């Protein structure tokens, strides 16, 4: 009953990794510093987040209409649209396209939706060469690892680790200078960009009115991915639709600030359809609309708001739990508060019992979310659903305990009883001294604070003066 779960082990691993903890502390502090000041400069966080949330809800509440509008616009612009129910459908479509068009090499930009559906292994297994081009993603691709942050995927890697990785995989003479490593990656990937037959990206947003795919970046790899190869495939979850350019403006303002405290990303591309045979860009454009769990989430009054998420990573950056354990501790590709909700919604709350405990309910995530998602409210609902999945006895016991604590006399009684029990069962150091062996063993990993004689809520005003 008290065996450590895989999540427990992952947490211990994260906590024990000193470099990771320093990197997390440094990264989260750096990208959050000055965020509110920047928001104030561009119009004020509260007015902007209200408009950004409204832009998202406007589409989500009429998603069918906007999906049809998007499709019509992309077709008008000369592109193709593919509707995919599952990740497998996406892979099948791309592989079919690759076979028909003689595609052998693919360059890819960082796209969380492609991580979600594990696209790369599917393409590679079928014989395609796939190159991640975002520097962080390129590093973890070479290392065979998962991203540890949705915006900064390789933050868990030291420069020495990257140096050794490039030495081994690229035959580069050892150097841990970031400029040299970046230049090596630039050179290695530039060749791939020029040879690639197909470029695959995600989409930050898709504008329904015009069928325009919006892609934000700082490196330039997305521009190369969407300009050089003759086929561009953009994969998007169905929830990333925005009605028109006016609705896009507040989102374009809050996303770069929330992600990296930048007023504008280095490059923002707005791509509408293919360039055609003579143009400066791909001959063919394909938009893939992925449902997966999204239409189910849409149906839930408590959870539809999660579809507003614009993948900025702000909630990760302020989460005290994420900040101590890092992205790899989480079981899926999404981590931090948004990861907890999305994982539980995609896999079912009952399968995510321990994950749903990975919160202090401090509400920092809800405070920084640029589209006003209330993650903690959803944690509580998901926990309830997970509990209900455990059967009537445990649910009843949990409900009874909750009921007892909810009433003042019940709380008083419980506090006194626990105070007495605590002083009987625990020794002076807070270790369990009485009880079954299994409880004593648990007590070796955790020491409980010794209860006070008088419960806190019984301490009168005299204590304050003293």
């Amino acid at each position, binding site marked *: 009953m008290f065996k450590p779960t895989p999540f427990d082990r992952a947490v211990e691993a994260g906590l024990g990794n000193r470099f990771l903890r320093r990197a997390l502390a*440094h*990264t989260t502090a*750096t990208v959050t510093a000055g965020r509110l000041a920047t928001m104030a400069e561009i*119009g004020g966080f509260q*007015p902007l987040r*209200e*408009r950004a949330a*409204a832009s998202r*809800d406007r589409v989500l*509440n009429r*998603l*069918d209409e906007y*999906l049809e509008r998007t499709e019509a616009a992309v077709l008008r612009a000369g592109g193709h*649209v*593919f*509707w*995919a*129910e599952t990740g497998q459908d996406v892979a099948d479509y791309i592989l079919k396209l690759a076979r028909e068009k003689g595609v052998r090499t693919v360059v890819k930009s960082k796209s969380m939706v492609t991580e979600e559906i594990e696209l790369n292994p599917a393409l590679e297994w079928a014989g395609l060469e796939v190159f991640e*081009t975002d*520097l962080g993603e390129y*590093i973890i691709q070479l290392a065979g690892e998962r991203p540890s942050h949705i915006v*900064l995927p390789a933050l868990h*890697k030291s420069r020495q680790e*990257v140096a050794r990785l490039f030495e081994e995989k690229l035959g580069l003479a050892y150097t841990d200078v*970031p400029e040299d*490593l*970046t*230049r090596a*990656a*630039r050179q290695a990937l*530039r060749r791939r960009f*020029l040879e690639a037959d197909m470029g695959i990206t995600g989409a930050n947003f898709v504008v329904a009115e015009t069928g325009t795919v919006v892609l934000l970046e*700082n*490196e*330039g790899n997305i*521009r*190369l991915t969407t*300009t050089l190869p003759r086929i561009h495939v953009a994969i998007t979850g*169905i929830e990333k639709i925005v009605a028109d*350019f006016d609705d896009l*403006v*507040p989102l374009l*303002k809050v996303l770069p600030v929330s992600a990296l405290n930048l*007023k*504008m990303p*280095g*490059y*923002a*591309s*707005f791509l*509408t359809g293919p*360039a055609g045979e003579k*143009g400066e*860009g791909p001959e063919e454009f394909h938009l893939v609309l992925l*449902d997966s769990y999204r239409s189910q989430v*849409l*149906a*839930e*009054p408590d959870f*539809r708001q999660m579809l507003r998420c614009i993948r900025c990573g702000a909630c990760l950056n302020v989460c005290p739990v994420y900040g101590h354990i890092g992205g790899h501790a989480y079981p899926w590709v999404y981590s931090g508060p948004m990861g907890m909700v999305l994982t539980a919604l995609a896999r079912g709350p009952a399968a995510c019992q321990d994950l749903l405990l990975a919160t202090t309910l401090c509400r920092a995530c809800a405070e920084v979310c640029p589209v006003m998602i209330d993650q903690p409210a959803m944690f509580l609902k998901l926990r309830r659903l997970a509990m209900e999945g455990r059967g009537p006895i445990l649910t009843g016991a949990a409900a009874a305990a909750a009921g007892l604590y909810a009433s003042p006399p019940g709380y008083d009684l419980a506090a006194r009883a626990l105070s007495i029990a605590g002083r009987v069962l625990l020794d002076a150091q807070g270790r369990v001294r009485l009880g079954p062996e299994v409880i004593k063993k648990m007590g070796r990993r955790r020491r409980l604070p010794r209860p006070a004689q008088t419960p806190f809520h019984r301490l009168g005003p005299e204590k304050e003066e003293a």
Partner: protein
Amino acid sequence: MSEPISDVSRRRILERVRRGLRAFEPPPVPLPGPTPEETPAPGADLAALFQKRWEILTARFHRAENPADLEAVLLGLLAPLAGKSAIVSDHPLLAAVDVDAVLGRAGLKRLAASVPEAAAAEVGLTGAELALASTATLVLTSDHPGDLIASLLPPVHVALVPRSGLVPSLAQALPRLTARPLPRAMVLVTGPSKTGDIELTMVLGAHGPGRAHAVLLDWV
């Protein structure tokens, strides 16, 4: 290319979406007013604001009062790159000078502004349609062939910016961009290419140009 399988998926996805929308009545979405803007004070010097913010991005700003001035500015920029190659877009702003002559005097060879030849170039010369002062952002579009490639492949990018294209921010730029057929591709460029993926150390020139120059043309 509407495959039968895609039609089935399309129908099923839309059905599930519609069912999801019927599941409950969402609270009404407020219709907020126009987006709050960081508006520079009326009569603000947009050029000075653009310059200040552009230079913070580790990019270089130049100004030319007339075509002769522009020639001198370009020669100054390009001379250090003597022996290397350049690509030049079709943007009409570049017709203000005899580009081939300038390149010749600076000692650079001109390559075609299309792949694969363009990949060997050290510097790309482009125009720009608009410039946003508040964020120091240049707007380049596919309307002028070569603008996109020349601002992307070479390690150095030089953009000619018309004074009349300088606007306070995106809110003023969008009506101008959407008032005519939307360009097939638009890129908003804010400074040089950069990355912080290795230990959050900022490095310029990740995949795009590491050195970006904006030349403001006062007479255009």
